[in-house]
C-alpha cells in the first residue's frame, strides 16, 4: 500500500493518488441483465448526464453531485429491499432516488424548481423526503438518525431495516462512530452502505483515512462485507444472504462497495490527474456493458436517452414550483 508523502500533512491530490490500488474490474464479465434493471441503470446514467448538461448551460442553479459510475449500487441493492425499509441517502443521491422510485420527472423538477417537484423545490438535489426515503446534505449526520429509525423498526416492524448510504470520506465524521457503537450495542437492523470511490471531493482516500473501513467495523464487532463486483446480478447474489441475516438477527452490517467516480465531484471540479480519470472511465460499467452486450445495450440506451431528453423538455416547460408554508 502506498502511503501519502510523509512531508505533506493533508494536502490535495498529487500523483501518488494514481498509484493507490485500483480494483481490477475491467476484465470482469457483466451478466446480461433483465430489461428492467438495465433500463434503470441507463435511466440514472442519462439523467445524470442531462443534469450536468443543464448545469453547463446555466439552466440549473446551485449545485449537484452526480453518481456516474456508481449507478449499479442502488440498482443491485434495492431489489433486496422492500417498501417498508427506510433508505437514507446523501449528497450523491439521484441514483438512489431513481432506483427506488423510477421518477425522473419528480426529481428533475425538484432540481430545477418546477411544478411537480418531490419537495416543491425547497430541498433540491440533496434534500429529498418521499415515503421511506430521505436524503440530507450534512455528511455523517444521517447515521444516528437511521439508528433511531432502526430502533423503531426493530420494535414496531421487526424484519424491516434502515439503510444508510455514505462515502469513504464521510468516515471522518464522529457521528458515524457514535451510530455504529449504538447500532451494535442495541442490535439494530442498520445497513451501512459505503460507496468507496476512493476519493472525497478532491482528497484521495489514503490522504484522509488511516487504516481501513473493514478494521473500523471490526473494532465495533460489526460484520463487514466487501463488494468489488460491479455486476448487478452478482452483487445481489452476494448480498441477499447477509441482508436477510440482519433482518432476522437484528444486527448492523457494513457493506463496502469498491466503486468508481466517473464524473466530477460536483460539476466541472475534477482535479484528479488525467490518468486517474482515464482509469475510472475504463472501469465504468457503462462502457463494459456496451462492449459485452452490444445489441441489448444499444436499444435500451437509445430508448433511455430519448426518454430522459423528453423528460427534460417536459419539466423545463413547467411553471415554477410553489411552496406553501406556515
Amino acid at each position, binding site marked *: 500500500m502506498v502511503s501519502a508523502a510523509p512531508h505533506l500533512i493533508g494536502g490535495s491530490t498529487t500523483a501518488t493518488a494514481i498509484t493507490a490500488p485500483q480494483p481490477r474490474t475491467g476484465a470482469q464479465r457483466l451478466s446480461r441483465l433483465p430489461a428492467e434493471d438495465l433500463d434503470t441503470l441507463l435511466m440514472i446514467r442519462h439523467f445524470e448526464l442531462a443534469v450536468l448538461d443543464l448545469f453547463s448551460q446555466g439552466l440549473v442553479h446551485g449545485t449537484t453531485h452526480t453518481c456516474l459510475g456508481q449507478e449499479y449500487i442502488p440498482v443491485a441493492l434495492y431489489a433486496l429491499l422492500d417498501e417498508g425499509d427506510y433508505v437514507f441517502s446523501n449528497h450523491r443521491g439521484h441514483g438512489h432516488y431513481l432506483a427506488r422510485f423510477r421518477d425522473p420527472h419528480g426529481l428533475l423538477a425538484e432540481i430545477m424548481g418546477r411544478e411537480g*417537484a*418531490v*419537495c*416543491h*423545490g*425547497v*430541498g433540491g438535489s440533496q*434534500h*429529498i*423526503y418521499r415515503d421511506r426515503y*430521505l436524503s*440530507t446534505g*450534512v455528511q455523517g*449526520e*444521517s*447515521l*444516528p*438518525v*437511521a*439508528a*433511531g*429509525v*432502526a*430502533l*423503531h*423498526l426493530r*420494535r*414496531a416492524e421487526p424484519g424491516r431495516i*434502515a439503510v444508510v448510504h455514505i462515502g469513504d470520506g464521510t468516515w471522518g465524521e*464522529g*457521528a458515524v462512530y*457514535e*451510530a455504529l*457503537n*449504538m447500532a451494535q*450495542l*442495541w442490535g439494530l437492523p442498520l445497513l451501512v452502505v459505503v460507496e468507496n470511490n476512493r476519493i472525497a471531493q478532491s482528497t484521495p482516500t489514503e490522504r484522509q483515512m488511516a487504516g481501513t473501513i473493514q478494521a473500523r467495523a471490526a473494532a465495533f464487532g460489526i460484520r463487514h462485507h466487501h463488494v468489488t463486483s460491479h455486476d448487478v446480478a452478482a452483487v445481489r447474489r452476494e448480498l441477499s444472504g447477509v441482508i436477510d441475516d440482519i433482518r432476522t438477527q437484528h444486527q448492523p452490517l457494513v457493506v463496502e462497495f469498491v466503486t468508481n467516480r466517473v464524473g466530477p465531484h460536483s460539476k466541472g471540479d475534477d482535479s484528479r490527474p488525467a490518468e486517474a480519470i482515464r482509469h475510472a472511465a475504463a472501469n465504468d460499467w457503462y462502457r463494459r456493458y456496451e462492449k459485452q452486450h452490444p445489441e441489448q445495450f444499444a436499444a435500451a440506451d437509445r430508448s433511455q436517452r430519448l426518454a430522459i431528453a423528453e423528460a427534460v423538455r417536459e419539466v423545463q416547460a413547467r411553471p415554477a414550483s410553489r*411552496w406553501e*408554508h*406556515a
Partner: protein
Amino acid sequence: MTRPERVIGNLNRALHTLLDDDPRAYVIGEDIADPYGGAFKAARGLSDRHPERVISSPISEGGIVGVAAGLALTGNHPVAEMMFSDFAALAFDQLLNFASKSVSMYGRPVPMSMVVRCPTGGNRGYGPTHSQSLQKHFIGIPSLSLYEMSPFHDNADVLTAMLSREQPSMLFEDKTLYTRTMHQSGVVDDLFRYELLDDPSRTARVFPVDCADPDWIILAPGGLTERAVAAMRTLLLEEEITCELLVPSRLYPFTVEPLLATVSRARRICVAEDSAADGTWGEMLAQQLHEHLWRRLDRPVLLLSAQPSVIPTAAHLEHTVLLQTTALRRALSEASQ
C-alpha cells in the same frame, strides 16, 4: 392541602406519566438507567418500569439527539436528556441541521415531536463547562422551540405542550430549581401570589398580594424566579417599590403582543436572564417591548444578564459573574430614581 412537591419530583412524575400514557414515548440519555436514574435523578424509576423505551446511551450527545430524531421521524415522542446543557453544543448539528430543518425543508410539514432536556445554569460550583445558560445559542432557529422549567408550570403539562408542537423543542432546566418546591394554588409566599395566563407562552404572573398597577414588570425565565422574587420582596418591604414578575414557559418563539395589556400597566420594565450578556433572549424581548411601548415607558427596558465571562468554579467568583438577588435589587432600585 397536599404536601409540597419538589421540582425534580414533579419532573420525574411527568416523565413517568408520559411513558405510562403514551406508548410512543421514549426517554434516552446518559446514565439514566435505574438504580442511578440520571445525574440529577429526573429519570429515577423509569427504566425499571419501561425497560424497552428507556434507553441508557453511550456518551454521545450528537448520537442521542440523532437517534431521538430518527424516533420522531417514525412517529414516536422521544425525550432526550443532555446530562448538562453545555453538552447540547455537541448535538447542535442534529438540532439545527436535521431535526428542526426536517420540519419544513422537504416542502411539506414533517412532524418531528421530540424534546431535548437540558439541565442548565450555575450557582452550583460546577465550573465553566457545566454551568452555562445556552438558550441564546438556540434562539431564532426555524422550527425549534425553547421552553424553560419553572416552579409554576407543571412539567407534565409542559411536556404535553412541547410534544404537541410537532417540532423539536428544548427544555432548559435551571439546576438550582430541582431541589426547590413547586408552587401550588396560586401562592408563592406570604407576600406574593401567582396565576397562569393563557397567552401562547403560558406565562406565570407573580404579583404582590394587594397591589394596583406595579412600578415595575420584570420578565425572566423560570430559573431566575427565586432570585427575582427575593429582590421583589426586599424592594417592597424596604423601598416600597412594587414589582410583578412574568415567567413564560415558552421562551421561543415569543411575541410580547398577547402580554401587552399586562406589561403596559407599569412604566418601567426589566428583563433579567442568566445568559452571558450580548445576543440574548433578553435583548430580543427588549427590542419587542421598545417597539410596542416606546412612548409609554419612563425609561428604556432595563436589561440584566450575566457577565460576558466564563463562569468560574469558586463560589465567590461564580457569584460575581451570574446575576444575583442583590445585583438585581440594586439595579432596579437605582433605575427607580
